[in-house]
């Protein structure tokens, strides 16, 4: 392994601009003559809009224009869409109400955009918006998932506020497994609603050039090409060849910047309307109100086992909160990203899942780091832990007994696991966590009046989404391949154009490592180009831990083509058959001779084209590829959390956190570990402190960092992170996705540790000090083991 090649912890090249303040985020972009947008948002969760009076606001200093839903309707601006079709059990298509970028006739959540004020400065736009008078006819709000069916109707198109009633698996076989079970474990679980909180708030700058009739949108996007496609094909702002979408440096996404939102749509549309650039940047309160939220499931889950401890069936019924409108990929999250993962790492013969997707008068809910897979992992790992405790089994050994051990393994819920070593990860995790020392540490805590507990999470997830035809058959409106173009310059430097987008993942380093490794050129001779639809032709973007497995596979495939072409050129230069040319460490040699030429010289020869017939071999050295995955990748691992609780205060200290993950081959272990650290912290946040709270009127009570508790440096420990390796067979690099694993695995590990410490069956997330203190006052449940 070279110092910069595959597998090396190369320091990130992109860091220099970020640590010196030279990053270029959307809010750092200013266009000549730009105006500023302020969105007037509904303060009601559910109301008709009877009239909007903006006469006084229009005369406010600096105001350029005020637009409402009527203006976008008049211009036939299309509504925001959901790109994944789900069918209900009865075969009927999901019921999605219209989602105009500015409300038309009705508002459906606090934060719904009602009007946009455009002025010379943001402050003037905001001042003017205060003078707008909206006459609302207030309707009943419904924020409680369990009360939404039968509550006031939110969308005419969706009776009973139901989007779909979906199911997966064999109900009869699963019911039969339960009928024969020696023991059944049951849990009612809430997967708490989270607000993603990327540190950079969403922002957009629309810029229209009337001379060329082209529109440019700078936006905080994880997938600028998908944004262009939707804004063009569905919303109808401009045809794709007249619409450029740029997502420059983006300050974190975690899913929330996948989606196509109202504000960016309006900035682009309004820029043309007023023939001036229009800029908008969310403040944090707006981000809380209007970014798509995550999770929000209520699930009844059951696990059946035989007398020997073999799990024979899993049955779940989940209510999934979609919020007020169906966001871009919302429908896929509680269905195909969720139920197919309910088998966990286990060989379970029968699984049946029912999911009811419900509208409420709350912000839209969509994919957030892990998206469906954390919810599934929470269900199966809470069930496994409780089942072990109820039947007096060691939670680690109970899991081991049920692990899938032969591959490929077809689960009863779609997925075909390709490769893994679940026991290997468990063994390593038990050592790192000093599982043998737990009893002594529990005794030491007890002697101080503290409660200590240990919790496991043996997670699996499916990422690197996914074969296009497969996702198409499940309802996806797009293919999920990735594209790459390798441009070799005449002096041998290389530009890689990728459809992946980096918003913290370090692609400029890891992708360059692949190129450096394959072409034998220094890292600094490689530039990674992404995030601009004028430069990169097409791409599907970054989410679902797909940039390594899918994005880099596309680059790998294009590099194969470059090497094949370069060998032909080298053959001509070295006067040998291309079949006798070998390429290694940046050098082309003729087999069995000392004749050689380096990569840079071959590049030059390819462009000057003097040594070959340009009719038979095209000059130049530039290749592109699209990579369509052959399967999901299945990262898996074992996380062990150890907590100490002060029963007097309810404060939970995470004392140790161990993660042993299998991500296949690692490109850059430093970056992989960093992804895991961040994911674990988000999962600890979900388990201990985060939770969006609406009151019954639909007001978001947690709309600032004063009220929504984010993990701080002193709320988490340092993490003990390690990996094992089983090589992924479904991509040329043998890699599995690592971006979401931490957030998927950690919540059940933490809750299993807390319930172990308390001796309780369950505690709801977030397990805040108040909740834990209350729980600690109750008598623990009797364990069969005791």
């Amino acid at each position, binding site marked *: 392994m070279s110092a910069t090649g595959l597998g090396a912890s190369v*320091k*990130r090249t*992109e*860091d*220099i*601009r*970020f*640590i*010196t*303040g*030279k*990053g*270029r*985020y959307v*809010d*750092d972009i*200013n266009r000549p003559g730009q105006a500023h947008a302020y969105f007037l948002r509904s303060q009601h969760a559910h109301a008709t809009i009877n009239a909007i009076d903006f006469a006084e606001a229009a005369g406010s200093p600096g105001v350029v224009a005020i637009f409402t839903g009527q203006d976008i309707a008049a211009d036939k601006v299309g509504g925001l869409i959901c790109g994944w079709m789900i069918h209900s059990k009865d075969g009927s298509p999901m019921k999605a109400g219209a989602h105009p970028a500015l409300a038309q006739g009705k508002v459906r959540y606090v934060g719904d955009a009602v009007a946009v004020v455009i002025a010379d400065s943001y*402050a003037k736009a905001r001042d003017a918006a205060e003078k707008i008078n909206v006459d609302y006819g207030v309707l009943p709000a419904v924020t409680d998932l369990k009360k939404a069916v039968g509550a006031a109707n939110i969308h005419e198109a969706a009776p009973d506020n139901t989007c779909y009633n979906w199911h997966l698996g064999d109900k009869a076989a699963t019911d039969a497994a339960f009928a024969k079970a020696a023991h059944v474990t049951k849990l009612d679980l809430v997967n708490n609603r989270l607000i993603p*909180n*990327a*540190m*950079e*708030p969403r922002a957009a700058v629309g810029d229209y050039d009337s001379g060329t009739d082209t529109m440019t949108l700078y936006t905080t996007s994880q997938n600028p090409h998908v944004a262009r496609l939707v804004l063009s094909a569905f919303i109808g702002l401009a045809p794709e060849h007249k619409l450029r979408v740029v997502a420059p*440096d*983006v*300050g*974190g996404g*975690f899913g929330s910047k996948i989606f196509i939102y109202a504000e960016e749509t309006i900035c682009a549309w309004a820029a043309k309307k007023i023939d001036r650039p229009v800029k908008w*940047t969310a*403040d*944090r*309160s707006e981000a809380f109100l209007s970014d798509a939220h995550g999770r929000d499931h209520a699930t009844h889950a059951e696990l059946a086992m035989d007398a020997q401890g073999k799990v024979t069936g899993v049955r779940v019924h989940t209510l999934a909160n979609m919020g007020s409108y169906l966001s871009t990929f919302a429908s896929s999250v509680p269905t195909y990203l969720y139920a197919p993962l309910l088998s966990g790492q286990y060989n379970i013969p029968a699984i049946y899942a029912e999911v009811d997707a419900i509208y409420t008068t709350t912000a839209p809910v969509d994919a957030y780091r892990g998206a469906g897979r954390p919810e599934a992992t929470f269900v199966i790992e809470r069930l496994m832990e409780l089942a072990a405790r109820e039947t007096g089994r060691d939670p680690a050994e109970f899991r081991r007994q049920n692990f899938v051990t032969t591959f490929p393994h077809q689960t009863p819920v779609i997925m075909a696991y390709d490769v893994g070593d679940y026991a290997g990860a468990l063994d390593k995790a038990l050592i790192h966590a000093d599982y043998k020392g737990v009893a002594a540490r529990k005794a030491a805590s007890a002697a101080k009046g503290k409660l200590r507990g240990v919790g496991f999470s043996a997670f699996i997830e499916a990422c690197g989404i996914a074969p296009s035809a497969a996702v198409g058959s499940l309802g996806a409106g797009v293919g999920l391949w990735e594209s790459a173009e390798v441009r070799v310059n005449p002096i041998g430097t290389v530009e890689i154009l990728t459809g992946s987008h980096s*918003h*913290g*993942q*370090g692609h400029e380093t890891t992708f360059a490592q692949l190129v450096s490794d394959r072409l034998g050129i220094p890292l600094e001779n490689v530039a990674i180009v992404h995030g601009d639809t004028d430069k990169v032709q097409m791409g599907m973007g970054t989410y679902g831990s797909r940039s390594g497995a899918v994005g880099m596979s596309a680059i790998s495939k294009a590099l194969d083509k470059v090497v094949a072409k370069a060998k032909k050129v080298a053959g001509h230069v070295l006067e040998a058959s291309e079949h006798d040319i070998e390429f290694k460490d940046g050098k082309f040699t003729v087999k069995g001779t000392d004749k050689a030429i380096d990569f840079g010289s071959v590049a030059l020869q390819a462009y000057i084209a003097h040594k070959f017939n340009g009719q038979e071999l095209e000059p130049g050295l530039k290749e592109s590829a699209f990579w369509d995955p052959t399967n999901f990748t299945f990262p898996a691992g074992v996380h062990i959390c150890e907590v100490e609780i002060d029963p007097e205060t309810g404060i939970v200290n995470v004392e140790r956190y161990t993660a042993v993950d299998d991500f296949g081959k690692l490109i850059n272990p*430093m*970056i992989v*570990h*960093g992804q895991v*650290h*961040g*994911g*674990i*912290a*988000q999962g600890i946040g979900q388990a201990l402190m985060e939770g969006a709270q609406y009151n019954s009127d639909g007001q978001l009570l947690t709309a*600032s*960092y*004063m009220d929504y508790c*984010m*993990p*701080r*440096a*002193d709320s*988490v420990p*340092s*993490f003990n992170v390690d990996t094992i390796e089983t090589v992924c067979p479904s991509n040329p690099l043998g890699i599995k996705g690592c971006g979401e694993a*931490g957030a998927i695995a950690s919540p059940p590990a933490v809750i299993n540790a807390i319930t172990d410490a308390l001796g309780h069956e369950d505690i709801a997330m977030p397990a805040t000090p108040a909740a834990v203190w209350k729980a600690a006052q109750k008598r623990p449940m009797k364990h069969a083991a005791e």
Partner: protein
Amino acid sequence: MVQVSMTVNGKAVSAHVEPRTLLVQFIREHLRLTGTHVGCDTSQCGACVVHIDGKAVKSCTTLAASCEGAQITTIEGLAHGGKLHPMQQAFQDNHGLQCGYCTPGMIMTAVDMVNRKGHQLDEATIRHELEGNICRCTGYHNIVKSVAQGAREMGGAK
């Protein structure tokens, strides 16, 4: 409009601004120094931290007009003569950043922490001192390592 004059990264600057102009707006919008970021509106996240007369301050809750005559250092003013400040270098060395958005504030806070607390900082001190800076990417693990290294190297240790 009010007249404000201050020194930013060693350079004298002055401008007429609206009285309500915040220091962060002055730095970002008037001086076009966009390394200082805004991540919240309640003075919680610390993405906007700059040094005013050598002390870390959240520039999102400081009026520009209140900084009359002050010496301001932003993230752009930390490196000298093309050489990174030891704290900047430590963040790269330890993968103390991912998306980079919170990073300028983290680094400015960390430098101030070292100025106040010295060069040998234990993990508990670093974690406690970072209470006013939120990062969503790193889980803080590598930020803590970065600050410890940066502190040592600011003291001349290698």
